[in-house]
Structure formats: C-alpha cells, structure tokens
C-alpha cells in the first residue's frame, strides 16, 4: 500500500466528479420498458441449457447436451430436421424461432439445487435467456422451476420423474414432458401381475430424496392394489456406492420381490450387489426371487451389464421404437454422434421443439403466451404417439413403455426390449389425485 493523503477537499472533489459521472449518462438511458423478462430484441434468441456436467448424473447430462445441440441445429435449419419432419405441428420452418436465430448457453447444475439455481440465474440475468431447460434430478428441477417462475421465464423440465415436479411443486411457468412415478406404477402393475402373480412380498430400497420417496409411494400403492404385501421400505443415501449392507437384510425378511427405487449410478451399484448376493437364484415362499427397477434407462443398463437381463422396469422412450418419429430422431442423432440417444436426450429434444413450436404458434416469446399455447395442447409425431400437455398441471400424458433387460443383446446399445406399451389412458390420473395434491399452479409470470 502506498502512502495516500486523503484531504477533505480531495474527497469532496472526487465525490462531485463521481456523482456527476453517474448522473450524466442517465440521459442516454434507453427507456426500454420490456413487456417480459429478456424480450429478445436482436436477430437471435437465447435458450439456457442447464444440465449436470459433473456429479452422479453427469452421463445423462452429457447426453442431454448433445440432444440440445441437435435440436438447435434443426431449429436453425441445419442437419436433416430430425423430428421436426414428423411432428404434427408444422409451425416450425427451420429458420429459428419467429425468424430469430436460436443461440444457446450452457451451465453445470452439479446435481445440486444451489449450484443449479446460480447457473440458471446467470443465464437469465447475464445471457438474457428467455427459456431455461434441463436438469437430471427432480430436486434440481423443482428448485430451478421455482426460480424460473419468480424470474418470469419458461422452464421446460428435462429428466425429472418425481410426482412433485408437476404435483405439489408445480408452477405455471414450468412444463414437463417426461413421465412420473405414478405413471411408472400404473404401467408396471399389470405386467408384474401377469409375471409374478398377486401374492407377493415386496421389499423397497429407495434413494433418500424427493424422487425416491414419490416413486416408492407410487409403486407401493400400485402393487398393493394388486394384492401384494409391502414388507419393508428402506432408505439409502443418494451418495451411497456400496449397498451390501442394505441387501443382506432382504434375504431374511421373507420378501420375494426387491424393488430398487434407484437411478443412475445408485441403481447400477445396488443391482450389482443384489445379483452378487445371489438374490436372483433364491426361491422364497416357493417362488423365484425377482428384482424390479421401476425407472430404467439404457445408460443404466449399460452400467449394470449382464445383471439387467430379465429385469423389468419402465421408461419414457427407447431408441428401438419403430415409429417414424423415433426412427428419424435416432437417425439424425446417430449420424451426428455415432450412437443412439438415451431417453434423457429424447425428452429434452422434444421439450426444445415443443417450446419453439409454442412460441411460433403464440407469435411471441412472452411466457404467458407460450404457456397458453402449450396448455391443453395435443400433438403427436415426437416418438410417444398422441400426447396431451394437460392444462391443470403442465404434465404430458402419453404412452409409457415397460421394458426388460435383454437376454441376448446384439450390441452394446441393444440392452433393453420393449415388453409392453401401456396406453396413455391407463396411466392418466386426476389432477387432484392425493399423490399430486397440495400445490398450486399459480398464474403465469412474465416478469418485468
């Protein structure tokens, strides 16, 4: 520190100059009374892709980011257009959104609510993003959805399977394409009934956070309706990597079905442990011991390797579907990256297209206009058959896939086979269903 003389006169002088300096440029201030947060005024519009790039769901996040980039390319008229060609709405012309070139910014949620909100905030405040999308964990999705509601931008949820996202934590500015825990239960129950009968004792191992809790509740309710008995529900920490100590008690509990409410790395480890303990070769109560993984993904199946053979679960979408839309998406994704997309990639690609399409149809980027265009919107041609964006809770209703780990995979991607496509009607529930009740959608917030 150099020696400084602070005199009264000096301070006054500097103060006056600084004051004048601050006051002067106000005459140049444009009276930009925007109608809504981050109204795009230039030739481009910015979207914010907020995905986990580090942490337990980094694989899903990386795949989401690939799909986002593909979607942006297609929206701007590049590539082969992917599902834009099969989408039932023809509002998108491949010239960006409303004639504005689509640009994007990315951020790392770290699968932490705080970090995700900080990242989303910087996208909104600094980069001028008019829509935030992404997330690979329900906790993060709910936190960011709340933020977007307050800030007055649209949130298009990515991979979030908890009932709460469109249940008690639903928000008017938030929309979810992915399915949820209740739908998994409703889709799995009939299949489980056919396979394993109505007299079973289930033991739940559950990831200890919002998604695990709501899925456990949903699956337990659906199986108990079949006549199954729930022996025990055990919570495991999200950060756990070794589940041996949780598996051992299962053997002595008298249970004959193990339900793993785990996702990502958790599921890979718990399933591997369960198989190592020989659970699948056990015969309990005169029946073969079975394992069920309600939420399945190809990335998980890949991680768990041979252990997934013959294990049932549900999924939002699978690349082996043979409809035109799925084939078009797999083709353009595969051409660009060299391997098929995961369900996470599919859902975020759809969300981006749906947002862009809603903006085109509404003729504005105003969140209230977009919300109006999406509410009660029926569409098809995005790989899930006819789909409804329900107005009451902003949840998509569409067919749910029940899948099984393939016995004889032909490639490293061909790990799951579709057992049944459960029609949307069977997984639809009332908006005030007890598992979803308690929250309020509120009214759309355009910010500013």
């Amino acid at each position, binding site marked *: 520190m150099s020696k400084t003389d602070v005199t009264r006169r000096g301070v006054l002088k500097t103060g006056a100059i600084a004051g004048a300096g601050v006051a002067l440029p106000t005459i140049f201030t444009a009276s930009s009374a925007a109608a809504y947060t981050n109204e795009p005024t230039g030739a481009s519009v910015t979207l914010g892709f907020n995905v986990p790039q580090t942490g337990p769901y980094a694989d899903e996040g990386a795949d989401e980011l690939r799909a986002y980039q593909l979607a942006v390319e297609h929206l701007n008229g590049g590539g082969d257009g992917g599902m834009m060609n099969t989408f039932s709405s023809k509002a998108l012309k491949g010239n960006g959104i409303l004639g504005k070139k689509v640009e994007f*910014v990315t951020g*790392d949620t770290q699968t932490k609510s705080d970090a995700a909100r900080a990242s989303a905030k910087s996208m909104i405040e600094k980069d001028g993003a008019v829509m935030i999308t992404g997330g690979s964990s329900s906790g993060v999705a709910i936190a960011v959805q709340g933020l977007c509601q307050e800030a007055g931008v649209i949130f298009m949820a990515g991979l979030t399977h908890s009932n709460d996202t469109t249940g008690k934590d639903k928000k008017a500015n938030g929309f979810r394409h992915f399915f949820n825990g209740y739908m998994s239960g409703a889709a799995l129950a009939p299949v489980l009934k056919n396979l394993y009968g109505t007299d079973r004792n289930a033991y739940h191992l559950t990831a*200890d956070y919002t998604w695990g809790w709501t899925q456990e509740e949903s699956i337990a309710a659906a199986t108990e309706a079949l006549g199954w008995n729930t022996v025990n529900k055990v919570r495991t920490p999200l950060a756990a990597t070794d589940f041996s100590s949780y598996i051992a008690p299962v053997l002595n509990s008298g249970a004959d079905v193990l339900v793993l409410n785990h996702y990502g790395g958790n599921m890979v480890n718990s399933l591997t442990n369960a198989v190592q303990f020989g659970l699948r070769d056990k015969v309990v109560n005169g029946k073969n011991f079975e394992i069920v993984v309600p939420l399945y993904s190809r990335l998980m199946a890949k991680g768990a390797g041979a252990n997934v053979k013959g294990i049932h679960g549900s999924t939002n979408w699978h690349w082996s579907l043979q409809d035109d839309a799925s084939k078009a998406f797999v083709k353009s994704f595969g051409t660009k990256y060299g391997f098929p997309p995961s369900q996470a990639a599919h859902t975020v690609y759809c969300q981006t297209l749906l947002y862009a399409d809603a903006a085109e149809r509404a003729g504005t980027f105003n969140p209230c206009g977009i919300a109006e265009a999406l509410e009660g919107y029926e569409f098809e041609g995005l790989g899930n058959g006819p789909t409804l964006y329900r107005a009451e809770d902003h949840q998509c209703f569409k067919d749910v896939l029940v899948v099984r780990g393939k016995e004889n995979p032909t490639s490293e991607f061909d790990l799951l086979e579709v057992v049944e496509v459960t029609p949307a009607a069977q997984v639809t529930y009332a908006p005030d269903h007890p598992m979803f009740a308690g929250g*309020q959608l*509120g009214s759309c917030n355009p910010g500013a």
Partner: protein
Amino acid sequence: MLGLNKKDTTLLLVVMALALFAPFILNPFPEGSSLAQMFNAGYPDLMQRFVIYGILVIGFNILFGLTGYLSFGHAAFLGIGSYSAVWVFKLIGMNVIPAILLSMVMAGIFALLIGYISLRRSGIYFSILTLAFAQMSYNLAYSVLGNPASNYNLTNGETGLQLLLDDPRILGVSSVDGSLPVTSFFGLAMRDSYQLEIGSWLFTFNVGYYLCAIIMLISFYISIRIFRSPFGMMLRAVKSNQQRMNYTGLNTKPYLLAAFVISGIYAGLAGGLLSSMDPLAGAERMHWTASGEIVIMAILGGVGTLIGPILGAGFNEYFKNILSKINDDVLHAWLAFLPDGLENFFVGIMHYFVGKGWHLTLGLLFMLVIIFLPGGLVEGGQRLMKWFSRKDKNATETKTTPAE
C-alpha cells in the same frame, strides 16, 4: 477515521470504492461482444455472491486467521442461517431485516453449542470435530429433518426449503396475483435493478447487491476493529503459543469461544443474505465440500490479512461461475481466426479445462497460488507493489505485514 489508523482507513476506502463501483469494474466489455458473454461478471447474482461469500470468509478469517484454529465445518452455520431466513419469509413476511437478524441469532446459538464442545480440543482434532458436526447438520437437513412425509419437515430435504403460495406470512401477504411475493427491504424489492446504458456498455445496479455490499462494508469495518483490538491481540497470542498463555494463568477458552461464535454469526449473516437474495435453502450448502471451499477461499486470498478474504471469495466465485459456462461452441467462436485444424486442436485441449472441467482449472489455479504465493493473492499484490516501488527505495516502508 472511525477509530482506524491511516492505513486501515485507506484500506476501508479502497474496499468501499470497489464495492460501490463493482457494477462498472466487473463489466469491462461492451454488451454483446463475445468477451462480454463470458468474462463480464457484473450481473446481480454473481455480484451478490461476491460480497456474501466475502462476508463469510471475513468471518472465517477472524477464527482461522487470528487464532489458527481451522474450522472445517463453517458451512453448517451458512446453512443454518439460510434455513432460518427462509422460515422467516415463510412464516412472518418478506422483509429481509427480521430474516437476517434471526439467521445471525440461530447461527450464533449453534456456534456456541458446537464451539463449546469442539474447542475442548485443538489442532487437527478440532478440525475433525467441526467437520463431524457439519456433516451431522448436513445429514439432518438432507434426510432426517427433510422428509416431507414426516411431521418434522424443517428443511424439505434434497429439494431445498422454498416458499409456497399457501405459506402464512402473518405480517405480509401469502401471494400476489397468484405469484410469490418478493423479498424486500421496507418496500425496496431485492431483485429490482436499474440498468444504465452508456454507448454499448450496459451496467446493472441491483438493490439486493447494494444492500449486501453495505452489510459487507460494515462487517469489514468490524473485522478491522477486531483485528486491531486487545481482543484480537489475545487471539493472535493464542495462535503463536497457546501453552504459554495457559502457563501465565490466562484462560484462553473464552477468547476462542468468542471468536468462534463471532465467526459463526458472520457465516449465519452470509446465509441469511443468500436466502434474502434468492429465497431457497438447499442442504448442499452445508456439505463438507462447501466447508472446504470456505477454507480454500481464505487461503487463496491470504490467511490473516484483512482484504484477503474478499479477494479469495471473489476469485473463487468468479472462476467457478465463468469457467463452468464456457462450452465448445464458445471456444470455436474465440479461436475462429485460426486455421481449421489448429482451431480444432486448441479447442480439443481447452475442452478439458472449461465447462465440466471447471474443477480442474480451479484446482490448477489454486495449486499455482499456493506454490508461488503462499501468502495468497495479498502476497501477490504486495510483491507487485514492492516491484514497482523498488525504484524509490521505500520497499520497507510500503510493505503491509499480514497479521500472523
């Protein structure tokens, strides 16, 4: 001025100028340029974080810098402060003052309890005890007290405690036109901003930021006073030789406990401010990595110096937020002037250091600082000063001595 000597007054004025003109200083690039896209940090959220983490580390430095007691669980107080503040917003109203006060009180109470037990040991055992308490708090917040199905849902688990439309807010309103009310300081909404356009530059003056900055300046002033007080002298004596203090018949524990509680209150204040700026409190705020980050910020800036904590906090937050947002497209845009092959080559290398690789870069920067500037960024500043002033042979006089 204000009972400070000349050098400290200058320091306070410098910090004050930095804080008040931060919107200009942090936005050096014109709006819309590709450099602005990445390196401008003058947006409300990040500016708020700079000063809030500044407060946190100033407080941490009172404990670690003066007494040498390394608390590895300071994030717990940050979290407790955050939760307290959100509960005030849920139950009482959206004014930030009661929220901040309660968060300081709660953090103080917890610091008293944890400090009383942990300070029975010193050195590494003290660090481990504080770490254990912080992890305990984290687990309580994450699952035991955070299960929505139980009757003791204090923290809402992994989702984080957030405001709802049907919260009572007895002194405020539950909802405004179907939306949540915003946090405010007697009617001044925290998120209100005034935007100033000068040519192609855009500067944002945010109410919340200035509230935080003023509180940070007050905290900084108090910290200077503590450093220069007889109390601060006692704490320094503890650091240099606690045993000798004990032999001379002084009971050091009350001093240590006082320092621990003060520093806990600072952390609670920071937590309360975080929630006031963005009313959501997540359990990750209490995770041990968050505690580690506080230690890193303190060491980066310069332990035991007055301005070090602010520099360290700013450095860490800046690189965390900026690096994690750079992606390959941005890199391509920067290096577009190079021939294609070379461009792809450099992007391929830099790819590992930005975006998801931000941890790596921050780690490398941390290593560089620790190896070449063991005194932190403050030492870097001093070396520069010395280098410049070597010509006028006044090197000895201009050197500021970091408080040992």
